[in-house]
């Protein structure tokens, strides 16, 4: 949890809070990226806030019989049922023994959610601080480096998950499980394995 060093006392906290509303809204905000710092199997990752539609915690996921290992089931978000995929398995981690507590809605044509283990914080970082993956080692699986789009260094080096690329991979894997005459969207619910 990122607690600013300058807000160590209550009066200082109050002053910083008030100054935030006293500043004019400037265009410099476009120079920053908002990122969600998360953890998958203990490894640090980041996801751009612009790639998601919402963050949720402890939503009930109803499991479904499916040939897709990463599909955990269905959950209700804002009045609609969406499939929930386990982000760790999509990043080539082994299946978790316990269901992930955190979920996020991805921005896509067909809504779907990604479940992950832990949420650390929201990061507001300068784009100049973003790094290329080639510059430094990442904790991502070797076969999924195409799902990462750079990295950000806070206290740790966090690879940034390329959510649009992940959507494409997911659509491809789901489509591979559908029958040839199916017209459903690729990442909507896959066909029953039977």
């Amino acid at each position, binding site marked *: *949890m*990122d*607690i*600013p060093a300058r*807000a160590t006392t209550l009066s200082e*906290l109050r002053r910083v*809070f008030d100054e*935030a*509303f006293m500043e004019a*809204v400037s265009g410099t*905000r476009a120079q920053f990226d*908002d990122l*969600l710092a998360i953890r998958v199997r203990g490894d640090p990752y980041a996801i751009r*806030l*612009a790639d*998601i*539609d*919402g*963050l*949720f*915690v402890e939503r009930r996921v109803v499991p479904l019989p499916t040939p897709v290992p990463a599909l955990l089931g269905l959950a209700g978000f804002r009045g609609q049922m969406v499939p929930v995929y386990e982000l760790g398995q999509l990043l080539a981690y082994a299946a978790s023994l316990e269901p992930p507590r955190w979920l996020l809605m991805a921005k896509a044509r067909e809504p779907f959610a990604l479940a992950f283990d832990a949420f650390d*914080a*929201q990061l*507001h970082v300068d784009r100049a601080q973003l790094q290329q993956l080639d510059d430094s080692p990442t904790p991502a699986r070797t076969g999924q480096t195409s799902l990462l789009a750079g990295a950000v260094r806070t206290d740790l080096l966090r690879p940034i998950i390329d959510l649009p690329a992940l959507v494409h991979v997911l659509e491809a894997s789901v489509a591979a499980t559908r029958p040839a005459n199916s017209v459903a969207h690729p990442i909507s619910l896959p066909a029953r394995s039977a």
Partner: protein
Amino acid sequence: MNHTWTFGKKVAAGFLISSILLVAIGAIAHQAIDELIQTSYWVTHTYQVKEKVANALSSMKDAETGQRGYLLTGEESYLDPFNSARDSATTSIRDLRVLTADSTEQQRRIDEAEKLINAKFAELKQTIDLRKQGQQEQALKVVAAGVGKRTMDDLRLVLAEMDRVEHDLLKQRAAQSDATAIRARQSILYGSLLCLAFATIVGAYLTRTLNQQIGAAVGHVQSSSAELQAAASQQAAGAKEQSGAMAEISTTIGELVATSRQIAESAMRVADIAEQTAVAAKTGDGTVERGQESIAGIRRQVDLVVDHMLDLGKKSQEIGAVLDIVGELAEQTNILAINATIEASGAGESGRRFAVVADEIRKLADRVAGATKSIRHQIDEVRSAVNATVMATESGAKAVDAGARQFTEVATAFKQIANMVSMTTDAAREIELSTKQQASAAEQVRTAVTDVAQTTRETEASSGQTLQTASQLAGLSLELRRLIQPQAN
């Protein structure tokens, strides 16, 4: 000779046999000499008879000579030989009768000679008387008649026969004497040679036996002297070592005596200290009882502390529950702020100020969450401290209980110590007494050891003398061996 005889017996036997031989030789010689003397006596006897015969004949010749001179001259002085011859002839006949008493033949011849002598002297006297009467012619006629001459011739024949007989006896006795002398000489010579041979044989035998027996005995004596010398040397060395050891023992016992006295003094001091310790142990017993009461008070206070700490732990758990709610609220607020930011970004320019609000709300939620975590961390530390304190307090309570039990044991131990100190006092007194007795006994032992050391020194001197005597004996035996065996070394 028997081999089991002693050398003295053998020498005595040799001397006895030699003496017997000498006695035998002496006896033989004595007999021979006796026979020789006897023979010489008879030879002398024969010579005496012959001398007497000659004397008788000479007397008759003297009487006839005096008769003739008187007849011729008429001088009375010529009658002296006649007168002495008459006595001499009578003496000779008498001696001959005595000397030849063992021979009847000679006695017969003496009788015959005596008759003839008497007849001659009668004829001579007749003529002499006639001459005295002046009848010289008549006297000459008697002479001329030849009676006297025939008597004289007969007498010469008888005496010659006697002399011949005696001469034969003399030759016979001389031969007997020579034979006796030869036999005596041979007996003495052969006996002496036999005795010499026997003495030589016995001497050689005794010499050989002497060499063998005395040599063996001297050898034994020599070896025994060497063994005695070695034994005496060992005894001297042993006595010397024993003397040294006795001196060391005496010194050690002296040190033991001094140590025993020191122990006695120490035991006395130990007894005094034990009595003082007994008093202190009794005082400590009361102190321990008061300590037990204090520990019971501490135990009660510790129970109160444990109760308070358990209450504090419960309060901390309640605070933790409240913090869980606060943390949950902060997390939900953070999620709401993030979702608000997402929604604001989708609202375009109008949502930018809302995004600022949402961001600040998220920051506040972050701070609350951080503060909550900090508080939870501190609460956890407090709970850990409380748990540790409770554990430590319970350990302390257990330690206090153990201390109480140990104090009870200490009290019991103090009583036991007091009893044992009393026993120690008695034992120290007994040790003191025993050590004094031991010191006295050690003193006596030291005196005895000193006497033994003196005896050992005397033994050492005696062993030295024995060694010297053994050496002298070895030298004497060697010299004796050289005396009987010159080639010996």
